[in-house]
């Protein structure tokens, strides 16, 4: 954000929009996988994990017999980032793999915003160290463009054309205060 120019902020996804987008993604995941077999949702901290939990709940609602907790995991990518030496030290988050493991599973990586693609690159590296999934897919709530690597998402909540001067903020009730769901674009208008 530059010092000149007023800082504008507009809500692009409301709580209901986020819920609808996640419902659609959940059905897309089920459709692409032809059912819930072998599905594992790995959320990338911080906000990917609550999104993965919500997707798992929706998948369980659509496909009876699925235990949402048993197919959700968290994948920390901190140690695999390519900018460790350029950014302030970040403490790692926990990695939690479902008891079934990820070998020969269909792993869906879940994150809030897809931007440069570098987080997803580190996630792919982190995943390799945990096992060998049969298929890896990517689901994101928001795709804001400006990719720096040949990476694309399989399931997108909303495509947001942005300028790189803007910031996309995702707030989720699980991890933000005030506890609301929204996606906001901030930046010089």
């Amino acid at each position, binding site marked *: 954000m530059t010092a000149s120019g007023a800082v504008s902020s507009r809500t692009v996804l409301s709580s209901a929009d986020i819920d609808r987008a996640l419902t659609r993604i959940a059905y897309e995941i089920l459709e692409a996988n032809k059912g819930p077999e072998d599905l594992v949702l790995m959320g990338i901290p911080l906000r990917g994990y609550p999104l993965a939990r919500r997707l798992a709940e929706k998948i369980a609602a659509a496909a009876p017999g699925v235990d949402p907790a048993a197919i959700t995991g968290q994948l920390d990518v901190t140690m*695999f980032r390519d900018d460790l030496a350029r950014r302030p030290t970040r403490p790692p988050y926990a990695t939690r793999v479902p008891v079934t493991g990820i070998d020969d599973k269909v792993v869906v990586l879940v994150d809030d915003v897809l931007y440069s693609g570098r987080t997803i690159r580190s996630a792919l590296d982190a995943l390799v160290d945990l096992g060998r999934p049969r298929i890896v897919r990517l689901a994101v709530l928001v795709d804001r463009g400006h990719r720096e690597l040949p990476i694309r998402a399989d399931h997108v909540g909303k495509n947001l054309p942005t300028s790189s001067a803007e910031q996309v903020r995702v707030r989720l009730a699980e991890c933000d205060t005030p506890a609301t769901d929204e996606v906001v674009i901030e930046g010089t208008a």
Partner: protein
Amino acid sequence: MRHLLSTADLSHRDALAILDTAEQMAAVGEREVKKLPALRGRTVVNLFFEDSTRTRISFEAAAKRLSADVINFSAKGSSVSKGESLKDTAQTLAAMGADAVVIRHGSSGAPARLASSGWIDAAVLNAGDGTHEHPTQALLDAFTMRRHWARLHGTESTGTDLAGMKVLIAGDVLHSRVARSDLWLLRTLGAEVTLVAPPTLLPFGVGSWPCTVSYDLDDALAARPDAVMMLRVQGERMDSAFFPSVREYSRRWGLDDVRLDRLDTLGLKDTIIMHPGPMNRGLEISARAADSPRSTVLDQVRNGVSVRMASLYLLLSGENSTDRTAQEQKR
């Protein structure tokens, strides 16, 4: 944090950051691929002027699990035995491009000298200096205690401290850098510490330390500690007699079978027995106590790798230190 020299200058926040990071590092040790790429291309030098098994191997394993390159240096068989000074050794390492130096030295303050002298521009980790400090040992002790304490309270250990825990540290406090490091860190984390030793093995000025001091192990055990840490009797640092005989020491200040059974009769079923190693079995700790289910000696060794991984990661990742402090001030 630029160096890890002592636990006395570790803030509550920094201590928790290291312990929490260590918690994540511990999970890596249980995976199939026990390696992270975080310190790829960095060089860690283990500079050991004193003998050590577990600390050196632990640091080596920690650095390797983070994909750093490790150079081991021990004073025996090196140019130090030809009379090379610490300064020249340090400058040699600097010229070879060391990013971190793990140093153990017989003289208190040698790591601080290395960190502040400007001889070498690397992160310095104190792996034990004379009778001063051994911070990573204290961190792994605190990590072990915190896991035990959190399990007793049925909570996750991440983010918690040791508030309310009663820790008894018994033995050769005079020569023990572990006792000093443990005391400062445990106090920072909110634990109460009692030191027990023969009067001859207590340092001058111990009265001003933030702890209770006792000469009687049985009295101290009756105060119902949650953890009992037995210190090694450091024969190699004793050039005169500090106690009449080994038998007498063992009888009065050792955790023998009688005292081990007394823990049960006192109803202290959750009290753990710790030892920084190497143990003198039959002197400060009996074989049965060392091998009992209460003993966390092997957990301590295992946790040592995690804590050292966390320390190396937090010191070596991130931008170079000057920019980092500027960033921290901004935040």
